[in-house]
């Protein structure tokens, strides 16, 4: 098991390095390949309004004209030990982990990212609990009552959930429950959990439910399909042949096997969302990482975009690692092979 953990950890680190290289390449190599000069890149850094002189200075200072390997090295070095940015008259120190410096906003990227994280964490975490509980429960009941009214109704709703876009359900829920019924007057503004837990929760109810509805629909379908498959397995027949009560057969034998693949997808979904629930945050104007990414793209704020993409990749790799380890805990065939 220890061996397995070490192997997985090393693999995750290697993956992170590769992901950072690829991301870096997308931002710096691809533009070059398509014919953009380093001056063009520099202009993206300082924003749309800067004059040619300023652009040139930035190009030199940031070393955008230097070989890509060196630039990548400097970027990684910044994450580990921090970096100094030289603006002629003033010098700025960007402490580790330095994920770059936003010239548009004149701030280092990392503290801003850190600011946004609780929002995304609250949104994704809360929604995840809701969708996991509802999705899996619905899926299991549907499978066990296959063909019944309950099954048909929940699968119908699930189909709607899968096909309705989040901005539609989101805006609809805002119109009804915030504006019309006034149940959640604060929906669409974020109050920190430590500031006021009650407001935090009540403001997040609509985004949670909207996001969870979509995901729960997916999970219900997934769980139902998995459960139906598992119930047809030979070992379920064996469990019944032993004389186990049906409840034990379902909970101890069927559910455990069904939930294993669901868990994998859950980990990846959660990891992806932690990197920014772009659509939900956009719809509810929540200042999370997703909104941060969209705003940065709109402002042509390359360092911020790079930073948020790296963080997103980090969460996905982390989630994969956690899932791998959990999988090994659950499934001895993985652990012992």
């Amino acid at each position, binding site marked *: 098991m220890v061996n397995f953990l070490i192997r997985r950890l090393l693999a995750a680190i290697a993956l992170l390095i590769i992901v950072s290289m690829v991301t870096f390449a997308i931002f710096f190599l691809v533009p070059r390949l398509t014919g953009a000069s380093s001056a063009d890149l520099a202009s993206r850094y300082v924003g749309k309004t800067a004059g040619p002189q300023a652009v040139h200075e930035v190009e030199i200072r940031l070393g955008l004209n230097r070989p890509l390997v060196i630039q990548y090295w400097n970027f990684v070095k910044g994450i580990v030990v921090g970096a100094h940015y030289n603006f002629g008259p003033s010098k700025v120190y960007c402490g580790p982990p330095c994920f770059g410096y936003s010239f548009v906003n004149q701030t280092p990227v990392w503290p801003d990212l850190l600011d946004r994280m609780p929002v995304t964490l609250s949104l994704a975490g809360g929604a995840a609990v809701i969708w996991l509980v509802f999705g899996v429960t619905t899926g299991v009941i549907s499978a066990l009552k296959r063909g019944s009214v309950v099954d048909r109704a929940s699968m119908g709703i699930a189909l709607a959930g899968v096909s309705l876009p989040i901005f539609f359900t989101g805006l609809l829920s805002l119109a009804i429950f915030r504006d019309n019924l006034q149940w959640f007057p604060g929906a669409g503004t974020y109050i920190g959990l430590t500031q006021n837990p009650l407001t935090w929760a009540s403001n997040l109810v609509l985004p949670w439910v909207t996001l969870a509805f979509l995901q729960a629909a997916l999970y219900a379908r997934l769980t139902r399909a998995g459960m139906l498959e598992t119930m047809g*397995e*030979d*070992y379920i*027949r*064996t*469990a*019944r*042949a*032993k*004389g*186990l*009560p*049906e409840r034990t057969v379902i909970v101890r*034998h069927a559910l*455990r*096997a069904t939930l294993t693949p669901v868990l994998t997808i859950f980990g990846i979904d959660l990891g992806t969302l932690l990197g920014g629930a772009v659509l939900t945050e956009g719809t509810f104007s929540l200042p999370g990482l997703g909104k941060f990414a969209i705003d940065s793209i709109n402002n042509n704020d390359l360092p911020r975009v790079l930073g948020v993409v790296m963080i997103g990749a980090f969460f996905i790799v982390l989630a994969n690692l956690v899932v791998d380890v959990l999988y090994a805990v*659950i*499934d*001895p*065939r993985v652990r*012992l092979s």
Partner: protein
Amino acid sequence: MTEQDAITVQAPRAFLEVRDLRIHFPTDDGLVKSVDGLSFSLERGRTLGIVGESGSGKSVTSLGLLGLHNRKNAKVSGEIWLDGQEIVGSSPEQVRRLRGRKMSMIFQDPLSSMHPFYTIGAQIIEAYRIHNDVSKQVARKHAIDMLDRVGIPQPDKRVDDYPHQFSGGMRQRAMIAMSLSCDPELLIADEPTTALDVTVQAQILDLIRDLQKEFNSAVIIITHDLGVVAELSDDILVMYGGRCVEYGEVEELFHAPEHPYTWGLLGSMPRLDRDRSDRLMPIKGSPPSLINVPEGCAFSPRCAFAELNEGRSETERPELREIGPGHRVACHLDRADRRRLWDEEIRPKL
């Protein structure tokens, strides 16, 4: 209730008595009559071999005996008496209490039949503790004893292994240990050795025989291979298309079989003392459809002797008739013809 019925109901019953068992599955294509009027009985300490090709309804029968068919998609009728208790008409809860304790089953593929996430020990302990109110420690000791009894070396260590860490033969032994953990009086083994290689097959069959002697249980061995049941069984039931076509003691069935399908099975049995080229006489054609079963004898499309009966084979279903003590056959052929055919045409070729 007619007088006749009253007499049958009061008649002393065998330990296991199956009467006119029918298991039908309504499907979109039609009614699948997987088992269609099967009757047999079995006493404690005896072994019945059920033999038939793939699709003849052997597994459906065995699941029926354990009451494992889903009432939503299977129509089960007839009677199954196990030690005086009727199973077909009992509530699911009553049958559940019998499963594992009074009757239990060894499945064909021990790898897929054991839960991949639980240790061998945990699965045996679970089986034992449903029917016995004992602590985990006691159950664990019992599990180790059982593993020891079925010949697993170092049972106190292997008890904590997972199914995938066992070899095929060891897994089947573990499966047998699990099935026997509550001293069942009826043990059904559904093709217990098909997933195993030949040497291991023989060991497993020996094991089943030894355990039966020890536990004095009634055993049903299901297989498509007559060779497997030859040494193990007291009686043999030959199944074709969901029905019994021949039933008799093993000696009788091997030396004086009277049904053309049994002849076919004997002909397709590999024999070590013959040259490969003339030892196999596979039965031509494929097993019958169980939907829209034709009138007449289900075997008639494949039977070489169907014409000898002036068309009766195609139009009239042969009844299972007693032709000697404990020997029953369902075929329209004349007794004399059958004996002549067997002696002159079939036996010399085997």
